[in-house]
């Protein structure tokens, strides 16, 4: 899945050509890549870090890192995924520093799974207002749920990648994703009943 998320969109061929040039050290080519992906990276950072200012800083930092590591990038792997992996790693580091590590990494890791949700999965949110409610609910999720959710459904990272980033087991990723969805169902249902 390729997201052209910025004003400047490049097709696959242009992109791989720009990448090749950037790997040879062209600043202009990296500028094109930046233009193409900055929104996407910003979105991930914003979702994880929760504030626009922090996300902007993180985005700059991520591209700086990406450029420094560009020669380590192997073209077999989708570039966007590679970039988003860097972004998520950076954001998680930011969060780790922001809080004491155990606070968000260990609070729920070993708890047994709560009883299966009585609520049915979310259904298509037709209205804009409803989607907003869902987005708000995502933003309000605790980090331990929000991060895997964003990495999975925004960043398209695999369970294994998420597990590695968050330094938890693959099973915990599954559990957290599942619980994130349960929590979302609950919150969206609550906001519906309020309306």
């Amino acid at each position, binding site marked *: 899945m390729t*997201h052209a998320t910025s004003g400047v969109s490049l097709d696959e061929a242009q992109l791989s050509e720009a990448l090749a040039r950037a790997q040879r050290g062209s*600043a*202009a080519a*990296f*500028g094109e890549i*930046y233009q193409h992906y*900055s*929104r996407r990276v*910003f*979105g991930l950072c*914003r*979702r994880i870090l929760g504030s*626009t*200012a*922090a996300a*902007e*800083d993180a*985005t*700059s*930092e991520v*591209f*700086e890192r990406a*450029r420094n590591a560009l020669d380590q990038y192997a073209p077999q792997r989708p570039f966007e995924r590679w970039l988003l992996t860097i972004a998520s790693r*950076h954001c998680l*580091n*930011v969060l780790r*520093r*922001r*809080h*004491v590590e155990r*606070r968000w990494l260990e609070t729920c890791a070993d708890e047994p*799974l709560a009883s*299966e*949700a009585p609520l*049915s*999965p*979310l*259904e*298509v*949110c037709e209205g804009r207002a409803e*989607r*907003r409610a*869902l*987005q*708000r609910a*995502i933003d309000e999720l605790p980090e331990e749920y929000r991060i895997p*959710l*964003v990495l*999975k*459904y*925004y960043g398209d990272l*695999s*369970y294994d990648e998420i597990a590695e980033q968050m330094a938890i087991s693959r099973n915990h990723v*599954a*559990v957290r*994703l*599942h619980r994130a*969805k349960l929590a*979302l169902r609950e919150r969206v249902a609550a906001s519906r009943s309020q309306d």
Partner: protein
Amino acid sequence: MNCPSELSLSMYADAELPEEQQRFVLGHLEACARCRASYAALDGENALLRVALDEAPFDAPESIAFATKQAPRAPLARAAHGWLWAGAALVAGSPLFLQWVWALVPSLPASVSWLGEWGASSGLLALARAAWLHTTDNQDLLSSSFGFAATIVTVLLLLIGSAQRRNHLWRWTACVWTACGSLLAVPSPSLAADVRYEDGGTVQVGPEETVEDTLFLSGKYVIIEGTVHGDVYAAGERVDIRGEIRGNVYGAGEAVVISGYVAGSIHAAGKDIELAGRTDGALYAAGQNVVLTERCVLAQDAFLAGESIRVKGRLARNFSFAGEQVEVTARVARDVRGYGERFALTSDSEVGGDVEVTVSAEEAARIDPAARVGGETRVDVHVEEEKRDFLHAGFYLSVLARALALLLFGLVLVTAFPSLRPPPPGSSLQLLRRAGIGFVALVVAPFAALLLALTVIGLPLAVVLMMLYVTAVYAATLVIADFASERLRALVSIPALARLGLALLGLLLLFELPLIGGGLRFLVCLFGLGSLLVHGRARYAEWRHQLQAAA
């Protein structure tokens, strides 16, 4: 039928089940309508989440600053950047230009004449030239006009080159070389220099000898009996100047004895310093024992510092001092001012102006009634209080007051410029980098302000720079307290403002700790200043980026 759990179905929907289980679920779904419905719902939920996450409900900025070394820039911005560097190179090359200015102006107005003195005999210039002469075996770069022209052209090329290049390292290197080149190209007052040194031996300028150049001497014993028309830089175990020096004297040694005539100023440092001749310039001396003998005649001010200072002879201007034991038996035309543990003005003394001394105890000042003082005599007693601050409530109140003041300052700052609040450092490398930048800023900013102030036109800029500098140094503590309060968030659940106040209070208390307090304050200053600068630069880059996007 044994249905898979919702967790398994959810993992299946994410295509993340191990292969074996995946096959099982697939088979089960074909058979179980209820699970098929659940799976469809979960799959729909995933799709919905993707859509919701992909939509940006927040205001994504039009463009995000990308503060990197080689970020693509608009040609205009690149040109502006180049000029910035040209400016930096110009500052680096400023000694050369200052010297040109001084060469052009034959006599400076009285109010800025001290600038001329500084420019003409700047120790840095002279030392740079001495190093050059030493390494090139006394081959003077300026002895031919060709050499001079070549140096000027090189410096200019470096200036232009540094403005053109886009690589920072190259620019810095160019700046440094420009500075060095301009220092070398600057003619010292006598246009040439003579370097003599003797390891462990005696370096001598004989009684019949006349040296036209600036003279650099170094040896175990340095003796000058002849005449030197330029400045004298002398270092040795014993520096003995008996001859005639038309320039300034810079002397350092275990003993520095000057009994000859010096037309310029004397700058001397050493264990024992003795002055017994006539000097037309000022005297700056620091040493364990500083003695001005009866034959000493000084036409300008004297500034002396030492453990024991004994002054006889005649001083035509003011006498300032700082020392433990100070005894004056001299004729001073103007004021006598200073600080001494013990101070004595003997009966033979004569002071044209005031006598203002600060001593450690009432009885430590002995001013003979027979001494003639033209102006007023004032003796202040400075009693050093015993330092046991921690026992007094006043100490804590003052720390509290300072913390509150900083907190208030921080509130004003954050309200006025919320975006200026720097984020905590990402890694220890960043921390080091920030501290490094902070250190450079701490040192460079006052110098830059001084250089700007010298150009007179740049004076307002220098004032603004210094104001910013002082504010930033003050705010540095605040920045660190802010980082600390972020850390505190995990430990205590109190409002952010209270947390910040607590962190400030803690920091200020730590600053007051004996022994480590000072060092801590310094580190905090470095790190805070660096954080502010790094963050400010990122903000600036962002702003410029937005400007370009708007254009």
